[in-house]
């Protein structure tokens, strides 16, 4: 399978600040790719470089097999883009803007007529006749998603597509992204980890301009799930946690919900062998012991040094 996006050593410097520092990304064709990172990590800068709005200081960017700097209109014709805060001509209606956007892509009137109804319904704006100047931020965000789809793009680039949406709008957009799987490559940045877990098959985590992890989401979670053990006992959990904390194969010990002991370990096999023995020595009752799955949020927190998105 070929790559829809490939960046090599992508670097963007503003004055003294490295907004992007040697970013290598590969986004496979047809995938739904989640791009995570805390505020200021460089997600929006990456999208601006990918769309040609900003020029990289160094490194290369290939979009759909073409160098983004030289490909120009032929590449842009195959891309749909939603910025984090989309700007519209406020004197237009939603339909007028979609017709304008379709016209820029050179889409014929008949095809555009067919698409407009579907896109306006997707945006929940089919019955809205007012000008865009009177829209709420959520309405503008939904219109932004619709305009990004007007050319039936091969590659959809979305910057925080669900951030301004209510739960129903968010669900509609995520369902739409899922429906595109395999047909359109979707690359979207977000702060909402639940969205990524729900729709993405691959994820990259950006921190201070550097990609700290990039993998299929299941692989990423599995990689860290092996390092976590959850234990529940009938009593004496504090004593057991203290005892476990003294072992050389333990990284961290924390108390989870319902009194469970959550242990991050360097050696899962040692934990599986020694924890039951400790419970027996302390004459405690074992209710549950399992290799707990580390959620994406925990992976994220671990990788970006504790900063929350």
């Amino acid at each position, binding site marked *: 399978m070929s790559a829809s996006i490939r960046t090599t050593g992508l670097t963007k410097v503003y004055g003294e600040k490295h907004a992007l520092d040697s970013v290598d990304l590969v986004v496979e064709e047809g995938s739904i790719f989640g791009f995570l990172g805390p505020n200021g990590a460089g997600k929006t800068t990456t999208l601006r470089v990918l769309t040609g709005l900003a020029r990289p200081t160094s490194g290369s960017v290939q979009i759909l097999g073409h160098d983004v700097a030289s490909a120009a209109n*032929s590449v842009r014709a195959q891309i749909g883009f939603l910025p984090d805060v989309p700007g519209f001509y406020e*004197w237009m209606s939603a339909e007028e803007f979609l017709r304008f956007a379709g*016209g*820029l892509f*050179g889409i014929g009137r008949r095809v555009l007529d067919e698409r407009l109804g579907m896109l306006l319904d997707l945006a929940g704006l089919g019955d809205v006749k007012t000008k865009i100047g009177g829209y709420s931020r959520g309405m503008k965000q939904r219109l932004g998603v619709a305009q990004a789809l007007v050319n039936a793009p091969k590659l959809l680039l979305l910057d925080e597509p669900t951030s301004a949406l209510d739960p129903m709008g968010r669900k509609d957009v995520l369902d739409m992204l899922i429906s595109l799987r395999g047909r359109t490559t979707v690359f979207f940045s977000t702060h909402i980890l639940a969205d990524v877990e729900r729709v993405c098959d691959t994820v990259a985590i950006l921190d201070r301009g550097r990609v700290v992890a990039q993998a299929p989401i299941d692989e990423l979670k599995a990689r860290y799930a092996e390092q976590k053990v959850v234990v529940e006992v009938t009593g004496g959990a504090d004593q057991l946690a203290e005892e476990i904390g003294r072992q050389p194969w333990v990284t961290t010990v924390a108390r989870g919900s319902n009194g469970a002991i959550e242990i991050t370990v360097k050696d899962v096999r040692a934990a599986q062998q020694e924890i039951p023995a400790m419970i027996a020595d302390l004459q405690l009752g074992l209710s549950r012991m399992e290799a707990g799955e580390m959620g994406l949020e925990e992976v994220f927190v671990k990788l970006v040094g504790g900063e929350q998105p």
Partner: protein
Amino acid sequence: MSGFAVFARKEAREILRTWRIWVLPGILLFFALTGPVLARFTPEIVGALAGDQLKGLLIPTPTYHDAYTQWIKNLSQIALFALIIIYGNIISSERRSGTAVLVLTKPVSRTAFIIAKAAVHSAFLAILVVAGSLLTWGLTAAVFRQAPGSALWSSALVWLVFGVLFITLMTLLSVLIGSAAGAAGAGLGTYALVSIAAIWKPLGTYLPAALATVPSSLAAGKDVAVLWPVLTSLLLAAVLVALATLAFRRSDL
């Protein structure tokens, strides 16, 4: 229809559907309506205001040339100032509002974006100048009973070249300066420099600076050479658009 044509059509519709259709046309309409009447009745107005203070001072009988000169002076001063201020945000407003981002991530080049803006607004100015000049012509004929067209149209069309030059200048300044007020200030400063430069004969004969004064001379019926300043102004306008395009292509959005 190409991306250029679609964007140019958007620009034209934006003029018709926003404040742009009221401000510059309103100013020009006002001057076109009042210029010939004021020119005709200037002696009476001055006499009524001054009373006996100007007794003995001979005020020449106004002619249609005075009406034409009034129109051109208004274009050269207040209308041009308004144009400079209005077009201080011709590019920066699209960058600030985010609309440029949505347009330029579609198959529209930055070159097309700049050229479409400069071309549509130059055409808009041409329509306004022609409409205002027609109105001035008709009213002058009504008030003065005679209104030969050559002095009016030669002066108005030469001024139009000057106006187009300033639209292209504001396009460049609006690319370089993000603040509309800053770009307008730079435009007004350039106008002041051009007006001063026109005093120096070489600049005031062959180069665009001549167009600060030549239209008024034409309106007054004087025989003035316009070929070189018009040609150099059109060339400079093309250079300004090229520079605006170059600067816009090199900038991050």
